[in-house]
Each structure stands twice: as structure tokens, then as C-alpha cells.
């Protein structure tokens, strides 16, 4: 039962770290953006997991059904917001990456660093 009850949280931790690894270790700026989106998705998972309720349904009130259990609407609302924030960040980040490519001719971090060091 311990495994079933907490597996979601472990996956949250693992996804978070996969995203983090891509951010730290990958040189390619586009790959970093993908890593960032994995990182953010991991947090969505955390919130939606805590909203789940055993025997519940999606929080859409069914008229006339007494004693129906619903999952928690609040974290779902928060994550709707967070998803939109995520896509906004990604769009802006991609625009910056495209401009970096136009100015530097590459999107590999270490090459850019080398070009910056040689003024």
C-alpha cells in the first residue's frame, strides 16, 4: 500500500530531477527549454496528485446525486494557471533562443560562452 500511495510523489521527484539534469548538464539551449518544461510538468503532477480523492469524480456537481464525492477543485485551478504560465515561459524562451541563433549562429551554450569571452 505504501508503494501505491506514494508512487506518484516519487515520480514527481524523478521527473523534477530529469528536468533539472537537462537544465544543468545539456549545452543545447533548445534542450534546456524542453528540460524546463519537464520540470514544470513535474510540479503539475504533485498538485493534481494531492487533489485526488478515493472514490471521487471530477469536481462537476451532479444535481440530484447525494453523497457523491468529488476530487479537490483548488489544486486543479492552480495547475490550470501554472500550465498557462508554463507555455508563456516556453514561448518567450524559444523567441530568445531563436534570436540568439540569429546573433551568434549557434545554440550550444559553450560555443556562445567562447564567443562572448573573445570580444
Amino acid at each position, binding site marked *: 500500500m505504501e508503494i501505491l500511495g506514494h508512487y*506518484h510523489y516519487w515520480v514527481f521527484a524523478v521527473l523534477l530531477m530529469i528536468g533539472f539534469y537537462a537544465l544543468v548538464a545539456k549545452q543545447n539551449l*533548445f*534542450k534546456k527549454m524542453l528540460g524546463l518544461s519537464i520540470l514544470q510538468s513535474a510540479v503539475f503532477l504533485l498538485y493534481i496528485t494531492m487533489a485526488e480523492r478515493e472514490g471521487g469524480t471530477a*469536481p*462537476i456537481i451532479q444535481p440530484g446525486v447525494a453523497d457523491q464525492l468529488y476530487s479537490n477543485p483548488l489544486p486543479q485551478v492552480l495547475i490550470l494557471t501554472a500550465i498557462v*504560465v508554463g507555455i508563456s515561459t516556453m514561448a518567450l524562451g524559444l*523567441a530568445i533562443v531563436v534570436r540568439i541563433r540569429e546573433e551568434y549562429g549557434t545554440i550550444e551554450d559553450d560555443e556562445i560562452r567562447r564567443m562572448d569571452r573573445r570580444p
Partner: protein
Amino acid sequence: MIVAVFGIFLLTLLVVTAIAIVRSSDLFSAVMLSGIFSLLMAANFFVLDAADVALTEAAVGAGVATVLLLGALALLPTDERQGNRHVGLAALTMAANITVIIYATHDVPPLGDPAAPAQQHVAAWYLAHTPELIDIPNVVTAVLASFRGYDTIGEVFVILIAGIGVLFVLSGGRDQLLPKRPEPTLNTALKHHLIPQVVGRLMIPFIILFGLYTQFHGEYGPGGGFQAGALVAAGLVLYSLIEGEQAALELTPPNLLFGLALGGALLYGAVGVIAMLLGGTFLDYSVLLSDPIAGQHLGIIVIELGVGLSVTGVMLTIYHAFASRVS
């Protein structure tokens, strides 16, 4: 129990996909995999009884995000030069972080626990009082649009600033903001491929119809302005892919799209300001009409419309900002 077992299957796939995204050196495959990642995530949200979030993740994460990534990738080199840096540092932080999180979560309430604090207090209040205070079936929409409407206006401005930002950043070093008249030869994409063109034309009206259904059915079922905006935008992106960039820009001129984005955000804000003028606090829809519940309904419909317009406008503006650069 079933949920948990099924969840474990989906989650394991999710981890495998995430690893594949990071490891893949071909960025095109990485983008496709990230689309799969979002779909798996959406399926997972659905299993966890979060219908609205699942719909949003599918429309935004798997749909719009993939289109944006492809649009950007068309302007970028598509293979990653191999070679990782700081691997030791990354591994160390990862190990430390995983330990902290697993320590933190080992005594949190397990999945689905009805006695968990998160299920009490505010959440229980929302579920109990939405029927009498707002009287719409979808509690997610009620919380999103009314109880936490101030968060949602912030969200609209986040997406608006993303649109403004993409236009601003991509216009660097150019003499115009928005593509006025692209080359006729540019990006004629599927013009000469009969089957996708015919099928695409067939699908577009249905996609937009579904978008409108999502927009106006959001009080009763999963949906709302964000999902609708993303769906309508997806339909119009499909149009642009089939008929070419130029035809799409003639159908929806860039100024119109940007105007929609600004106008949607202002419409949302105007509802709040009108509520202030009528003697309520900002975004207090109850004062809009003499009957508070009718006022709530009116307020929610109008702000959801504002959100939908703004999201459609911003998504298409961003798409065209990338697509019109491909030469």
C-alpha cells in the same frame, strides 16, 4: 486501487518518455516525444479526476506547445551536438533533491486519502457552497473565474506578456513588428498535397466548433476560455499549415490578432472595474446585476470570453511571429 495501478503504468511511461527526451540527440524526435509526454500527462490527470486540467494539458501542452516548438525548431539547427557538462554537479544535486523530496513526501497523506488536510477546509467549502453562491455545476470554473478570479486575470496577463514579449524579442533588428505581406512562395506547406489538404479543410470547422462548445459549456462541463482559446488557435494554425502563411494572414491579419489579445485582457479588466464602479470590490460579479447569482453568471461568461479571445489572439500572434520568419 484500479486508479493507483493504472496510474503506476502511466507514470512509468512518463518517466521513460522524459528520459528519452533528454537523451535524444535529434531535436525533432525530442519535440515529438515531448508531445507524447504531454499526452501521457493529460491521460494521467484524467485518471486522477482532473478533467479540466487534462483538457488543458492536451490542448496546450500537446497541441500548442508542440506547434510552437516545431515553429521555433524550423529556425534552429535540429541536431544537438553531444556532450554534457557539469554531470557530476547535476548528479549530486539530483541525488540530494530526490532524497529531500522522498523524505518530505514519505509521511504525507497517501494518494486519495479523504482525511488529508488538502481535502478539508477551503476545498470542502468550495464544494459545499458553490451551488448556493454561484450555482454552476463545474466547481473548477467557479473557483477559477470567481473565487480566485484575481489569479485568473493575472494568468491572462502572463499570456499577454508572453505574446508582447515574443513580438518584441523577435522584432529585434527588424524594421516591422508583424509580418505585413510575406513572400508568395513562402511556406506554402501542403498546397500540393491533396489528401492532407482535403482532410484538413474538413476538420477545421469541427475543431473551431468544438472550441466554441468548450468556451460556452465551461460552466457545465470541463472547459473554459483557456482550453477554447487553445483549440480555436489550433484550428487556425491548421488552416495556416494547409493554405500557407499568406492566406492565413489574409484571413486573420496580424493587427486583428494582436487587437484580440489586448482586447480580451481589457474586457476581463473592464468587468472588474465596472464592479468597482458599482460599489463592489475588484472582480466582484455579484454587484453587476440586482440578483447576485445572475451577476456571477454574467461575470463568469464575460470574463471567460475575454480569456478565450486573449488566448486565441496571443497563441496565433506567437505562431505567426515564428512561422513568418521561416524563409
